[in-house]
């Protein structure tokens, strides 16, 4: 095609992209850099304005020697690791089930979409009610079945409360990853199974050598995405425990929010946010690297 035509396309491309790029610079790129700057400052509210004072890496030093941060950091790692392993394995089972001829009915897809679509806060109050110590259905069922002998205060004990939040988050997270893996399963060409059968592979061998290999990329992507989401968890903590009992359910994202907007220590909160940001940035890089090789298909 003519050069003039291509030039026109290029010009239009720039005009079409420009507004989005400008908006994203204002609401994403600028804040990211501003947040890095803030983390090296002591920021105080002074009447109407702010006082900012450069203090170098003092915020980071005090973070790393702070006990609350250390335990929030470890808990976040624990939370993320368990959540990723649990969601990936349960989602894989669910995806295999829904890919089975009997499970392919659209009814099951609808069922799967419901927990995903629930608003996170609605989900949080729902679980808060289920876990309720006096009238919660969980206590009632377990007590009636004789599994527990007295009602448990699910959100009242440090270690238990964290795991109950984890459980609710896992329930909410399974549908999306299942859908993702299901899409992956459907991308595995059927002839691979036929070939494996011809070679005498049994069901288990087919699973290991065809299904699992074919799902490698979706599984890795799920692990990366789910780690990012697990590190971001906020709504559930806010509604279920607000970090109690004794700060035992304070995870990094919640801590950064609390330091900034409750304790108004803006520089300190920004520093925590940036540490979280670094952790997630590494995961994001991993995600992009996994997708990159496929990018070559794009150009014409």
């Amino acid at each position, binding site marked *: *095609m003519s050069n003039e*035509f291509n030039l*026109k*396309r*290029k010009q*239009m*491309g720039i005009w*079409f*992209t420009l*507004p*989005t*790029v400008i*908006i*994203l610079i204002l*609401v*994403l*790129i*600028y*804040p990211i850099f*501003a947040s890095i700057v803030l983390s090296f400052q002591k920021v105080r509210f002074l009447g109407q304005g702010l006082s900012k004072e450069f203090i170098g890496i003092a915020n980071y030093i005090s973070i790393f020697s702070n006990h609350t941060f250390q335990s929030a950091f470890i808990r976040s790692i624990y939370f993320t690791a368990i959540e990723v392993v649990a969601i990936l394995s349960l989602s894989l089972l669910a995806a295999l089930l829904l890919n*089975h001829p009997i*499970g392919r009915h659209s009814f099951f897809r609808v*069922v799967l*979409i*419901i927990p995903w*679509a*629930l*608003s996170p*806060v*609605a989900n*949080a*109050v*729902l679980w808060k*009610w289920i876990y*309720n110590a*006096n*009238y919660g259905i969980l206590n009632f069922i377990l007590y009636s079945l004789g599994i527990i002998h007295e009602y448990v205060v699910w959100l009242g004990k440090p270690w238990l409360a964290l795991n109950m939040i984890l459980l609710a988050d896992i329930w909410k997270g399974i549908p*999306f990853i299942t859908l993702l893996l299901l*899409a*992956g399963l459907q991308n595995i060409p059927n002839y691979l199974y036929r070939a494996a059968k011809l070679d005498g592979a049994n069901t288990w061998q087919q699973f290991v050598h065809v299904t699992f290999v074919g799902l490698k990329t979706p599984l890795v992507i799920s692990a990366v995405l789910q780690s990012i989401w697990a*590190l*971001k968890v906020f*709504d559930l903590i*806010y*509604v279920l425990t607000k970090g109690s009992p004794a700060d035992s359910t304070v995870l990094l*994202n919640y801590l*950064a*929010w609390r330091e900034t*907007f409750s304790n108004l220590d*803006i520089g300190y*909160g*920004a520093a925590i*946010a*940036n540490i*979280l*940001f670094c952790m*997630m*940035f590494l995961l994001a890089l991993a995600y*992009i690297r996994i997708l990159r090789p*496929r990018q070559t298909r794009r150009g014409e």
Partner: protein
Amino acid sequence: MFYFKRAIGSLFIRLCLFVFVGVCLAPVLWGLVTSCLPQSALTSKVPDFNLRNFTLENYVLVLDSSRGLFLGLKNSFLVALFTSIVALTFGSAAGYALARLNVPKSNTILMMILATQMFPGIVIAIPLFLAMTQFNLIDTHVGLIIVYLSFILPIVVWIQKGFFESIPMDLEKSAAVDGASPLQTFQYIVLPVSLPTLFATGVFAFIESWNEFFFAIIMTRVNVKVSSIAIAEFSGQYQTLYGQMLASAVLASLPIVVLAILFRKFILEGFVEGAVKA
């Protein structure tokens, strides 16, 4: 023997499916039942499921205009609607340009968009909060919409770009041969075939902004209380009215769940698979 084994296998699959449906739906159904029971039935020693107890009273009470929820639903609707419209307008243009027009550094822009999807909201929330305070945009619809664009706009660009790539290039080439300018091609060829996807992307953007909580709690106070905040407030009260709390949760979730079910095919194709296939 073979048939016997097969029958056992299919029975096992059916059993698993049953458990699967139970696990997905039981909490939701329990929430629905709760929302239809009065406080007294919910706080008795044994939950009282007597059919005579079932009532819509909780719904009537929480929808009373003097309560926070009604205003919350209205605010959520306005914010989600305008966020979606703005994001669709700019995002689909950018998506088309990045997919089809020779934008300089288009790969860099795309990778940046993808990477920004993975930042924790708190990083941008702090400087945005300070900026919004300076411009007096805290607790305003406009302020919240601007902040929501930070995560909705990238999603829209990404989904739309994937979609525009799937339109056959020949369609556009033949329009060009017939002498159409790039803008005319976009206006008369590409846009009309894209309307259903645009709408579905809009629905997706709407769902995401409707469900948002984190930015809302930072950027709003009393004027622009969105529905998720109105619901969360129930759980913080001294004496929680469980039935009303769940009724509010149902009211805020129902439109979204219905939309998600109606558009599930699109969500599957456009978003879920988009996460795997860049």
